[in-house]
């Protein structure tokens, strides 16, 4: 019988991180973005390109795959690779899968990366259906029929259902947007560094009601890479090892499927249950969290699903400042998230979590920074979800 607690807890660590600039137009191809981020991550880990024997990535055919990158890096034969279709929902599974490979000893040094020209190239907001070479999911036909093809539409549908059931309001979503922007103001990596007020949020145009422009994340050109090795090796490398205490990945719920009659139930719950079993700890142990915020509502639903709030309980926590970086008991999206830092489909959340745990987050540094929850998208659209708990050694 499978048992999430059998996850190889703390056996693997993130020893290096690298990223490119996050911009609206990188001026280079995705191949170059990936190479830059990966080389930076390897350097940060105190290792060399020749040490890498595994590559993991994900995307919707807008990235550069491991087999091509391996050639460029001079890797004669990869010991481990992963190239997953889909976006942020599967992002953290790259870390989970790399951990399994490293723990089993079939690989020694795995790089997880995401590289894309998400603003100057293929954009989520203009062409969500099979733009040039993108593989179409099987359920797209049922969405195309309804002209219901963008994640913004599907997730807004769940947000509306939540508003109807619990009285959640646009102001509640606005608090999340404003908080994220506040956290981005002093983040040099962030694309959005001008202040946002609630009035600014409420004046921003409708994208898909109930989502306004500021409910939606950015589109970004850039790349992030992470270097993972076994924990005993990480101890000898330059930085404080950031242990993969636990990870889980698997099913969320899709909206185009019968069997779910309440789409306000957080799809994060089954992932959260397995994650906490894998990590051997619970919500009260989490000191800060980087939650996948492609839209503001996702943050709210994850706070519920990961056990920090009862259903409908998040607005009160927002009003109480629970998630503020400086003073809150659960600092959230300390870098500004996908909403205000940049949209590297979730790996930039890992980058920030690692900096925080190392104590390298400068003005953004949160006081209690040893145990972090980092998540991928909770399962809308793809039906996949993923998350990890990271702990400083």
């Amino acid at each position: 019988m499978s048992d999430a607690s059998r996850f190889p807890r703390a056996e693997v660590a993130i020893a290096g991180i690298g990223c490119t600039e996050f911009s609206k137009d990188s001026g280079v191809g995705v191949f170059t973005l990936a190479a830059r981020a990966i080389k930076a991550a390897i350097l940060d880990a105190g290792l060399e390109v020749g040490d890498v024997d595994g590559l993991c990535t994900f995307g919707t055919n807008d990235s550069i795959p491991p087999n091509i990158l391996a050639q460029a890096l001079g890797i004669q034969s990869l010991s481990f690779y992963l190239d997953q279709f889909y976006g942020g929902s599967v992002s953290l599974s790259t870390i989970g899968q790399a951990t399994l490979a490293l723990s089993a000893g079939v690989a020694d040094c795995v790089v997880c990366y995401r590289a894309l020209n998400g603003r100057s190239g293929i954009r989520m907001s203009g062409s969500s259906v099979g733009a040039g070479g993108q593989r179409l999911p099987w359920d797209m036909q049922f969405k195309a029929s309804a002209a219901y093809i963008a994640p913004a539409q599907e997730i807004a549908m769940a947000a509306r259902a939540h508003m109807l059931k619990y009285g959640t309001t646009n102001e509640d979503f606005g608090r999340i947007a404003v908080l994220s922007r506040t956290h981005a103001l002093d983040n040099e990596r962030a694309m959005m560094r001008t202040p946002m007020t609630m009035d600014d949020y409420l004046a921003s145009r409708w994208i898909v009601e109930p989502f306004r422009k500021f409910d939606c994340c950015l589109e970004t050109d850039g790349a992030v890479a992470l270097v993972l090795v076994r924990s005993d090796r990480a101890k000898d490398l330059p930085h404080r090892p950031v242990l993969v205490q636990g990870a889980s990945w698997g099913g969320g719920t899709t909206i185009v499927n019968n069997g779910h009659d309440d789409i306000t139930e957080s799809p994060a719950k089954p992932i959260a249950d397995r994650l906490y079993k894998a990590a051997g700890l619970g919500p009260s142990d989490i000191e800060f969290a980087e939650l996948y915020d492609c839209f503001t509502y996702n943050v709210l639903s994850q706070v519920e699903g990961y056990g920090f709030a009862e259903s409908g309980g998040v607005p009160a926590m927002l009003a109480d400042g629970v998630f503020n970086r400086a003073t809150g008991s659960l600092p959230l999206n300390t870098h500004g998230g996908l909403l205000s830092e940049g949209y590297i489909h979730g790996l930039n959340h890992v980058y920030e979590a690692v900096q925080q745990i190392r104590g390298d987050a400068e003005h953004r540094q949160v006081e209690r920074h040893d145990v972090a929850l980092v998540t991928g998208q909770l399962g809308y659209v793809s039906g996949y979800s993923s998350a990890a708990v990271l702990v400083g050694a």
Partner: protein
Amino acid sequence: MTDRRLVPVPDRDTAPYWAALAQGRLIVQHCRDCGVWTWPARPICSGCHGDNLAWEDTSGTGSVYSWVVTHQAYGPDLARMVPYTVALVRLDEQGDILIPGRFVSDVEINQGLKVRAAPEAVSDEVGILNWEAI
């Protein structure tokens, strides 16, 4: 007929569904063994995992569960349509079947509003499912 370019692409398993919509009918797979309805069309019953599934006409009616108003054009031919409303409708036959479709009535939409399928033929093989207030 419609000149909409964003249309469903049927596969062998779903072709009957789209063809029926082209004829104005909303058909859903109904298990001859356990009686559970399965949407969207799949080769396995969502109730008993069997394969004894029959295509059957539904009442075509349901009630609105949630909805979104789309202002952003997500495809080249959608610029003509925005803003438009997509409703997620709970089918009367079975409470866990939620089907999205463009809401094409002028009345104000709210949760619980009674609607019926208003299919629109795109070709002989494919119809689009819209919802209209009853």
